[in-house]
């Protein structure tokens, strides 16, 4: 470890007329670690990006290289506008749309339902509070994967195969958002609800006027986490959508990478580009909301 305040001192040093300029090895070390870390994270993505610019034939021979080719527009066209299936409906564009519907629908649904439940648990005196608590929070860490077959049958029985509801709602059936909101609500000062009650606000008014606006950063953080989670779903959409116009990007990519196993020149360019396209919207969400995100997380821990 280097000095915890190296950055502070380093920063101030730039304004000091050099008395004895001390080389801040600590700060240099910090930057070195961060640069290596950033490379570790970013290089693979950059390589994938590079591979979308060169012809597939070249990729299968050499893999990623330093050449930047001219294949990008063509690959983009293929990825976005050409369907890989017979129906002609699973174009990148259409999959992008489905991914957005899944990501946003899931995030919003989860936030809404989670907030309501957490509100009931934290702010009401209830007879079956403990029971409700455990019924809900037992589901906290259990992902869909371990009960996916019976879930599929339930969705089918409800006639929700190949529908957005069928895609989204079963994924909502866990308590992560509820858990986060519960933690957050518990940290909201007690006096606010009291002040609001004296100000004549009932439970609904308090929720809408006070609690929801107060949870803004938390909602933003949740939105990011849930959007990314929903967007990145793979197994469930693969099961539940059998019609090509319902495919999401991640599921579509899997289908294209599977083709790599097939009998012709693997479509690396298209697959890689779709992979990049699949990354961009969630990254945008993360970067756009990042300050709120970090704030939401920090504050929720108070």
């Amino acid at each position, binding site marked *: 470890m280097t000095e915890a305040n190296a950055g502070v001192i380093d920063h101030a040093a730039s304004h000091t007329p050099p008395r004895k300029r001390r080389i801040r090895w600590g700060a240099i070390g910090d930057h070195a670690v961060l640069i290596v870390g950033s490379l570790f994270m970013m290089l693979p993505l950059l390589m994938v990006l590079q591979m979308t610019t060169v012809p597939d034939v070249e990729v*299968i*021979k050499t893999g990623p290289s330093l050449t930047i080719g001219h294949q990008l527009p063509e690959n983009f066209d293929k990825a976005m506008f050409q369907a*890989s*299936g*017979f*129906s002609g409906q699973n174009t990148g564009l259409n999959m992008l749309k489905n991914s957005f519907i899944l990501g946003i629908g899931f995030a919003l649904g989860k936030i809404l339902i989670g907030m309501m439940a957490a509100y009931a648990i934290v702010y009401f005196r209830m007879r079956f509070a403990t029971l409700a608590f455990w019924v809900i929070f037992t589901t906290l860490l259990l992902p869909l994967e371990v009960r996916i*077959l019976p879930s*599929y*049958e339930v969705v*089918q*029985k409800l006639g929700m*195969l190949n529908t957005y509801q069928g895609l989204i709602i079963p994924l909502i059936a866990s308590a992560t958002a509820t858990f986060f909101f519960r933690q957050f609500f518990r940290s909201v000062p007690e006096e606010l609800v009291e002040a609001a009650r004296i100000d004549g606000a009932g439970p609904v008014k308090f929720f809408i006027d006070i609690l929801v606006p107060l949870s803004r950063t938390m909602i933003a953080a949740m939105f990011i986490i849930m959007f990314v989670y929903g967007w990145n779903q793979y197994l469930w959409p*693969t*099961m539940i959508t*059998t*019609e*090509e116009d319902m495919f999401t990007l991640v599921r579509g990519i*899997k*289908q294209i990478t*599977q*083709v*790599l*196993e*097939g*009998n*012709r*020149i*693997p479509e690396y360019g298209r697959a890689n580009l779709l992979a990049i396209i699949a990354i961009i919207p969630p990254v945008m969400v993360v970067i756009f909301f990042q300050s709120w995100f970090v704030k939401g997380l920090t504050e929720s821990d108070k």
Partner: protein
Amino acid sequence: EVEITWWHAMGGALGDTVNQIAEDFNASQDDYKITPVFKGTYEETLTAGIAAFRAGEQPNILQVFDAGAATVIGAKGATVPVQDLLQDNGVEFNIEDYISGVRYFYADSDGKMIGMPFNSSSPIMYYNVDALEKAGVTPPKTWEEFQTVTAPALKEAGYIGLSQSHLPWIFTENFHSRHDLPFATNDNGYEGAEGTKILVNNDAMKAHFTAVKDWKDKGFFEWYGTGWSDNQTPFEEGKVAIWLGSSGSFGGLSKKDLPFEFSATFLPYWESVTKEPKQTFIGGAALFAMAGKSDEENKATAAFFEFLTKPETQYMWHRETGYVPITTAAYEMAKADGHYDRAPAAEVGIKQLSLPAGKHTKGYRMGFYVQIRDVMNREYGRILTGETSVEDAFNNIETEANALLERFAKTQN
């Protein structure tokens, strides 16, 4: 217009051809419309079909591969036997129209055809003509020849002699048929799931894998992983001189513009095991008409099957992909068209399937066979990486496979 769907596992160039067939069918008449959907690997397609069937959302046609035959045929009521389907809808059906190798693999124990053979393949030996020339050898007919003549020469010439793409299919199932060895009790499982035991733990198999491991150690053979293309790629790259793959890969290989000339011939056999090598099992998959559909739709399915078995369709499919033509008529058409004069290797698959049949070459029928293949793959991987001995591996395969067969038998009540 009646719409029907068809779930298949044909990716890449194969998928394009499937789509072509569908388009042709849709264009050929106005009463029916078929939509093919690519569902992933053979295993995934089968699972998707089963799950959908349980949900009542099954497609009209499901492509099921050889290893899934027991599952789908065992579930009476899941499918409409194609023979019935065709006959009920007034399509003429004569099993003798089909080439001998494909007739009974997807039939029940009475010989009624349940699944419609569609993409029938056979494991064949592809070779790099340039490499063999360079090494001054001809394609080996027997494994003895391979290990004493071909491989050392190829190694000398800077090649790895051999790779293959599906250990259970090529080095196990077809090993049994080629050498006419019993693969399972109960007539290779055809007589019913109850009491069927796998017979893979035999001396010929063990000797074979002992040899393969030995080849690998000597640099005559290489194994690049369980994935199909893992082992195909080095052949395409010219590193490996001989590759055992599916006749269905022929189309893809031809389209790839490889930097060397390639050809194909029969799968080698051990002279020490048999002097009279037999035909191989058909590989690939068949199309099943799923039950629970309206008569109208079944009619459409029958019409499609009829279209599919037309010599023209079969020949086109055969030409584009390398899968064998399933009817004699189509085979004749290909011959007449001079297809084999242009590409002699394209005929290898069908010729191999037309070799003399033996007592045990009709096919095999084992439940939970996908898992049994997984067990084989796992144990073979361990043999080849030196993690286990051939003896232990086969003991394991036998035990686990038999346990699975027993479990499967219990599901069939």
